[in-house]
């Protein structure tokens, strides 16, 4: 099999601008998504994920414009998530140049939306983003539940069961974020990643907690994920995408080297 494991930088955007800065030395404007995308494209990123954290409906129009401007300059795959509530939101993002659209809260409260979107656009286009947190105590069998609203609201929904449900409804990919690990640099939550990767037949993207290049390798080899997503290690220049790929290749993982 020669499909390569993907490395996906994730950018937070609000009002059409990248926030939580991208500290590349050669960027004129670190808040401009096009500049960030061009830099990551050149660095060999396999895909880019934009997470729209825009609060208001009015600001959302600038996200469509941002995707359109990015797609004019970067001939690489783009996934966009955040605030997707209607079928028309998905169509607009695709028309702007997104290849996949990630659905989070809407999928939790209205799973049938996943089925409707998948029928319309095909499973390959619909990603369900799952934010999961461990709820079992010490010594108990591990159990994770879905949280919404940036990890603040619990739902009581079992994460593995939810992943099985949305993929049976037509989700073509799972973007799995461990709320326990996100921002900690302690590494992906491997038991959670493996439990979900082994339970579903679609690709799983591991997310949340990357601090070292070994963490990326663990996500694939131990977590059984199909792709790895990271934000700060790339944004702040701790590691380049090229270094990450070389490290993964040395560990025996097939990657797309860009020279």
């Amino acid at each position, binding site marked *: 099999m020669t499909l390569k494991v993907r490395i996906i930088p994730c950018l937070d955007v609000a009002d059409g601008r990248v926030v939580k800065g991208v500290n590349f030395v050669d960027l004129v404007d670190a808040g401009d998504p096009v500049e960030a995308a061009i830099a990551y494209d050149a660095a060999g990123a396999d895909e880019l994920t934009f997470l729209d954290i825009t609060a208001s409906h009015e600001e959302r129009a600038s996200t469509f414009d941002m995707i359109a401007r990015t797609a004019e300059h970067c*001939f690489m795959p783009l996934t966009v998530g955040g605030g997707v509530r209607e079928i028309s939101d998905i169509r607009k993002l695709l028309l702007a140049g997104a290849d996949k659209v990630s659905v989070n809260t809407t999928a939790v409260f209205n799973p049938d939306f996943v089925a409707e979107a998948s029928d319309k656009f095909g499973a390959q286009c619909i990603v369900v983003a799952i934010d999961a947190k461990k709820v079992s105590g010490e010594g108990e069998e591990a159990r994770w539940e879905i949280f919404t609203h940036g990890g603040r609201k619990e739902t009581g929904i079992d994460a593995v069961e939810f992943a099985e449900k949305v993929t049976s409804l037509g989700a073509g990919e799972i973007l799995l974020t461990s709320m326990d690990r996100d921002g900690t640099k302690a590494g992906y939550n491997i038991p959670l990643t493996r439990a979900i990767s082994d339970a579903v037949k679609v690709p799983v993207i591991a997310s949340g907690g990357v601090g070292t290049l070994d963490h990326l390798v663990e996500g694939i080899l131990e977590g059984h994920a199909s792709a790895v997503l990271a934000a700060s290690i790339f944004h702040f220049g701790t590691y380049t995408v090229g270094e990450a790929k070389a490290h993964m290749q040395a560990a025996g993982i097939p990657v797309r080297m860009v020279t």
Partner: protein
Amino acid sequence: MLVSIIDYGSGNLRSAQKAFERAASDNEITTEIVLQRDPEEVLKSDRIVLPGVGAFADCRAGLDAIPGMIDALEEAVIKQAKPYLGICVGMQLMADRGLEKTVTDGFGWIAGDVNKIKLSDPTIKIPQIGWNTLDIIGNHPLLADIETGENGLHAYFVHSYHLECKNAEECIATTDYGGPITAMVAKDNMAGTQFHPEKSQKLGLSLIANFLKWKP
């Protein structure tokens, strides 16, 4: 030269248009790339591109919703033999039938059905999402000067279905995903890619430039 990208509500129109514009300017090819909804204009164009993101039946319904479009495509591509490039579902629509969820008629230009990828290894995930290399079966002008094979350039795939060709010679490239998967088809003046050239960086832009120069 006038290149029409058929506008029938499919998702990747704009990306395709931008990639064609870039490939043309990089190669100093003078051309106009137009998003086209008018069947009469399609007949006046020199080259035709059918992009496609979505479910087979939904894309077919989008084309059917434009009066005269299917007839115009048939006239331009089959009777007038204008160069045609189908991308992803735009390639799958060249088949006899699509079997995604329901049975839907394709154009019947390339013999075969569009079927779910069958896997011998149950641990392999569907859809195939990501970058894979191309194994070339038949030389084709669209692949000229593109490094292919295991150590060649990569193409971006995102799909659960592929075109199973009845005539082996019409499948000109495969990709390995638990076995050979149809990556590219061609016949006479038409070609189709399962991968997305508009998202495949160097390989994609080279292929698009080759299409713009192609004289079948």
